[in-house]
């Protein structure tokens, strides 16, 4: 599904990613952990194609295709979804309108007709039920006045609507209380299948109690310094990151 080879990326001439290698197959869940400033969010932004990051070496392949030259929206059309750590507000644009635009732009890129209104309504109903979202919520302006939990739930709702091949959840657990965390995690679990893959970026282990990963990677100083199974997450929780820092000075 996703193959990252020797990825180097900088922002304003400061190198942040220093040779990342990662293989994610369909059906898998990978967790990327690491201390603050290790490059976790940069990695998600670079995969999604944010322009302020410059890829200086290496490549990213999605289903065998080098996506390095694609614009962010083209990557989205190919099935990459990023759940943002800090979702932005767009006043006056309802969640429904935003989703309708996103879906139809994607269909346009795939040379498909716009989705008929009744089909769109059906999809909205189905996905909001799946994620236990009150549909009144969908007429509100995107993220405007949303609580932390509502914002993250809304991200997962969008993920459900867009049915991506690869979903990257960037610090989806930050700012969530335990109930909200459970709801969000349940949502993600319901959307998992053998055809899609998920990358969970997190600072803490607790989200991984709910979204159980197949692999855990530790990112430090722009490199993956350790990879393992889900037990690695517990080890990190117990020991902290300092022992890894000491090993990788």
């Amino acid at each position, binding site marked *: 599904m996703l193959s990252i080879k020797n990825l180097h990326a900088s922002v304003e001439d400061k190198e942040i990613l220093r040779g990342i290698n990662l293989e994610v197959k369909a059906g898998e869940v990978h967790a990327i952990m690491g201390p603050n400033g290790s490059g976790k969010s940069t990695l998600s932004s670079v995969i*999604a*194609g*944010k*322009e*302020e990051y410059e890829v200086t070496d290496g490549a990213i392949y999605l289903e065998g295709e080098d996506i390095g030259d694609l*614009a*962010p*929206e083209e990557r*989205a*059309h190919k099935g990459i*979804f*990023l759940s*943002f750590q800090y*979702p*932005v507000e*767009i*006043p*006056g*644009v309802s969640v429904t*309108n*935003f989703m309708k*635009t*996103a*879906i139809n*732009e*994607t269909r346009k*890129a795939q040379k498909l007709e716009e989705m008929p209104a009744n089909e769109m309504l059906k999809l909205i109903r189905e996905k909001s039920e799946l994620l236990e979202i009150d549909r009144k919520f969908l007429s509100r*302006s995107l993220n405007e006045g949303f609580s932390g939990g509502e914002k993250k739930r809304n991200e997962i709702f*969008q993920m459900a609507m*867009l049915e991506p091949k690869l979903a990257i959840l960037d610090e989806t657990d930050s700012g969530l209380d335990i109930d909200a965390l459970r709801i969000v995690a349940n949502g993600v679990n319901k959307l998992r299948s053998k055809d899609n893959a998920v990358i969970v970026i997190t600072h803490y282990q607790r989200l991984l109690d709910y979204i159980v990963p197949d692999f855990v990677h530790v990112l430090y100083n722009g490199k993956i310094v350790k990879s393992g199974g889900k037990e690695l997450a517990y080890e990190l929780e117990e020991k902290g990151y300092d022992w890894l820092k000491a090993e990788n000075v």
Partner: protein
Amino acid sequence: MGDRGLDMSKYTEEELKVELENKEYAYGFYTDIESDTFPIGLNEDVIRALSMKKEEPEWMTEWRLEAFRAWEQMIEPEWANVHYQKPDFQAISYYSAPKKADPNKTLGDVDPELLAMYKKLGISIDEQKMMNNVAVDIVVDSVSVATTFKKTLAEKGIIFCPISEAIKEHPELVKKYLGTVVPQKDNFYAALNSAVFTDGSFCYIPKGVRCPMELSTYFRINQAGTGQFERTLVIADEGSYVSYLEGCTAPSRDENQLHAAVVELIALDDAEIKYSTVQNWFPGNKEGKGGVYNFVTKRGLCEKNAKISWTQVETGSAVTWKYPSCILKGDNSVGEFYSIAVTNNYQQADTGTKMIHVGKNTKSTIISKGISAGKSQNSYRGLVQISNRAENARNFSQCDSLLMGNNCGAHTFPYIESKNTTAKIEHEATTSKIGEDQVFYCNQRGIPTEKAIALIVNGFSKEVLNKLPMEFAVEAQKLLEISLEGSVG
């Protein structure tokens, strides 16, 4: 009779002589103007000739001359936050016969860039032809549409016709109301318009009648080319209602640089007028060359319990100078102003409103959304005035500015003059910028940047777009999109 008779004959003789001299001159001039366009320049003779060409009654000619004499004494205003080369008023021709379709012209002769824009707006081929004076095969159809429309209106006693026709057919109404809200001497451009206006619309809704359809200049789209100085007069008699749509919803590339229109609305007791405009005159090119100077005076008068709503979407023109206003004369009257003004490239807009509270319990609402992109300057200028006898007057103003990029400007000039302590005035203002984060968020969901900007701008303008009649709102949204094309990276 005796002496008196002699005096009379003497007088007549002299009068006759003067008349003959004038006539000779006028006739001489008249033959000159048998052609479609007047020679350039402006003086009393030009105005007389124009009035004659339009077969106007003498009172109208005199009214124009009065305005002209006032205009001659006035100077062009400079207080607006706009900079431009002042027009040379003696280098303009003040009359041009309505253009006729050229049978040899085809759409192939029209600027392809313009055609591409029409396509985006979803304008039919026939409309495109009409707008470019290309002969249309379905003229018969459109005539019959207009006729059915006129019949429905006539049954209700509604008058809706060109103002030149109203001057001849309904002189009592025109004479009674013309210039009562925007006097001839109101301002430099209003005076000029009063002197030389060529056409425009007239609308009268009788007592208690609710106009059954949106009155739109659409039906007279083929005449759109005539009005460099349009004059519109809308009268809603007691207890009546009308919704009026104005404007070219398609980009019009006008060879005339100056548009100085006047619109007067009169809402008598318990009447309501809703006036919506979508203005999209040629804004000039990317380097700021060309474009229309849009200097417009729009004002409405509300009698008791009356209501006037102005809604405008301004995306065109190189320079805009426009303040649709309400005089809330009657007790309990209501004035509203909803505006979206978009400027891109080198456009400059100075627009807003005046709410003049005279009567008791009068209410006004101002919602202004300014969107600036490129190197443009966008100013909101508004006045809320509460007179000393306007007990319990209320005003709410909200002015929001949205900036795109770092080279444009947004300015707000709200003026408040209150002479009554019972008045309640609220003013809110915000300035925001379309952030790269917002655009990236949309991109990540598969929405390309141009579409993302349109979405964000539409969201920002929603409160005003919602005030437009349905079919207008759709076109306005498309217009916003087109106006801001190329404004981002």
